[in-house]
């Protein structure tokens, strides 16, 4: 009962057996039960594995091109008023129709890409830089840490949009002020992130050894901390870029953003607010462009995160 019997398919290994000694007991090879995967090209594999990142990258490239080429692909001056052409429906002349003041919405939407991208990228860069600096100080200097973290906790308790709103209520509407207002609200999050990386690195024996053996702080930062902060910060920066573009639209939409004459997507929608029940297209077109742009940035961010995760998984 203990010896189990393995059924044998006759002739399955005849080819191998032919060259073997006649009395040798040879195991039959078993068939594979999973069919092999079809081979695919490099590009198609990339699309199949990371469809989101590819779509996001392409979308973002299109929006970037639109912003750069705005003067050539916009049909008319986005600020030109034409009182006789007010609130027109989309037509061959005005592809997306016109707003309350007779401005061409298509042109305004095209130029709006510039505002959104400038604000998104500026806030991402500024908030990252400021957050990095404050986070480094907080992580490296025990004495400053307590005070900085108290402040960070406090600022993080103010909902970011409200903080930006409060700031905007005290300054004149301009792209620069909007960037500053949104940046201030985003800095605490980056600070937390960088501080976390620094603190976890300080636990590492090699970093600790470098600090104890008197390596200058600047060298420690440059050699150990910056390279390790870079990956999570890049991902965080793309998400900040996306949320900054939404924040700008919200600020402009409620009247606390860039000046109304500036063609920003939030402003176009703010102008459409009064008429949205009858002229939905005024809001619809900038809404689609804003959503797609933010989606593109988010997808690219997810793609970077996945790529970095995979690399870290491989390093381990």
């Amino acid at each position: 009962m203990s010896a189990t019997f393995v059924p044998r398919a006759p002739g399955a290994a005849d080819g191998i057996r032919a060259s073997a000694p006649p009395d040798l007991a040879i195991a039959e090879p078993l068939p594979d039960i999973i069919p092999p995967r079809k081979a695919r090209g490099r590009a198609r594999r990339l699309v199949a594995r990371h469809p989101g990142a590819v779509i996001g990258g392409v979308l973002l490239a299109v929006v970037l091109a639109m912003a750069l080429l705005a003067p050539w692909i916009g049909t008319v001056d986005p600020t030109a008023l034409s009182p006789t052409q007010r609130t027109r429906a989309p037509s061959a002349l005005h592809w997306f129709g016109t707003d309350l003041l007779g401005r061409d919405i298509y042109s305004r939407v095209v130029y709006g890409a510039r505002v959104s991208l400038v604000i998104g990228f500026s806030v991402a860069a500024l908030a990252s830089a400021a957050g990095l600096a404050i986070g480094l100080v907080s992580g490296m200097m025990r004495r400053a840490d307590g005070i900085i973290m108290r402040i960070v906790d406090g600022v993080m308790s103010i909902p970011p949009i409200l903080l930006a709103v409060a700031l905007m209520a005290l300054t004149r509407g301009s792209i620069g002020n909007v960037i500053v207002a949104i940046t201030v609200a985003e800095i605490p999050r980056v600070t937390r992130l960088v501080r976390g990386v620094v603190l976890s690195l300080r636990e590492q024996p090699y970093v600790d050894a470098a600090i104890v053996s008197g390596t200058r702080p600047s060298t420690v930062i440059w050699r150990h901390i910056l390279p390790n902060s870079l990956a999570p910060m890049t991902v965080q920066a793309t998400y900040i870029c996306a949320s900054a573009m939404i924040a700008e639209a919200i600020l402009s939409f409620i009247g606390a953003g860039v000046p109304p004459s500036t063609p920003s997507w939030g402003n176009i929608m703010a102008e459409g607010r009064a008429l949205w029940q009858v002229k939905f297209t005024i809001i619809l077109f900038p809404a689609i462009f804003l959503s797609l742009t933010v989606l593109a940035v988010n997808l690219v961010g997810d793609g970077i995160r996945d790529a970095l995760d995979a690399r870290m998984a491989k390093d381990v």
Partner: protein
Amino acid sequence: MLGIIVRRLVATIPVMAVVALCVFSLLYFAPGDPVTIIAGDQASPADVARIRATLGLDRPFLVRLGDWTWRILQGDLGTSIFTNIPVTELIAQRVQPTLSLMLVTLAFAIAIAVPLGVAAAATAGSVVDRSVMALAVLGFSVPVFVVGYVLAHVFAVELGWLPVQGYTPIERGLGPWFANLILPASTLGFVYVALIARVTRAAMLDVLAQDYVRTARAKGLAPRAVLFLHALKNAAVPIVTVIGMGIALLIGGAVVTETVFAIPGLGRLTVDAILRRDYPVIQGVVLLFSAVYVLMNLAIDLLYTLLDPRIRY
């Protein structure tokens, strides 16, 4: 337990102090002269002087800070420059719609997002999972007012199923109150659902890989019992945490949602105050919302001890 609550409440004092200090000192650190901006371009020198005095900007920073703090501790948030009505009174008039909107959204979002996240994690890699994740990315990408206008356009204007705008106080019946909140709550809840579903999925994926889930399956428990009894309770801490942190999103979103749906709540009050540069009102609302946020997260901290027997304060 009471001792813990008191200790935790005391611990929030420094945070609230920083919030108050921030909101207060913005007036002093804002570039240019905020008073002329608040007063507007057509203001006479007398108007500017009056506003400066109302805001107390004619007195030294520390004197004013002490005075302001003392009054806040007594429950006085100042007076609106525009209407001359005390800010607390303005807030009291507007609390109900905002509170209704946020509570309905909270209930809605949690009831939808947690099962979505659990389903996605349970079927990781499947069509269900991919759809939930796609929905989550969409939730983060489509701004709240876009969601609002599209929903309102489809369900109120085109289909006529729900009221387009406005708010019905709860005293006038639960039905109308709720009907008026469905669209705004769906709007406000969209990004919140995305956030909670994503974190729920991640937390559940983590938990489902644990040995005790295998043990639960080895006992012969049905998938539903394994997921909702054994796994979800272990994933609860990160989920509840993100629900708390997401309240900041809800507050910001409420300002916009109330504008889209013409709901006379605190968000609307804020927007009106911005247009009129009524800084004391903005200050009051920001302080109030921040306090709510801090207290909610305090409550969630305390909830941890109930969810996980290993956590003790």
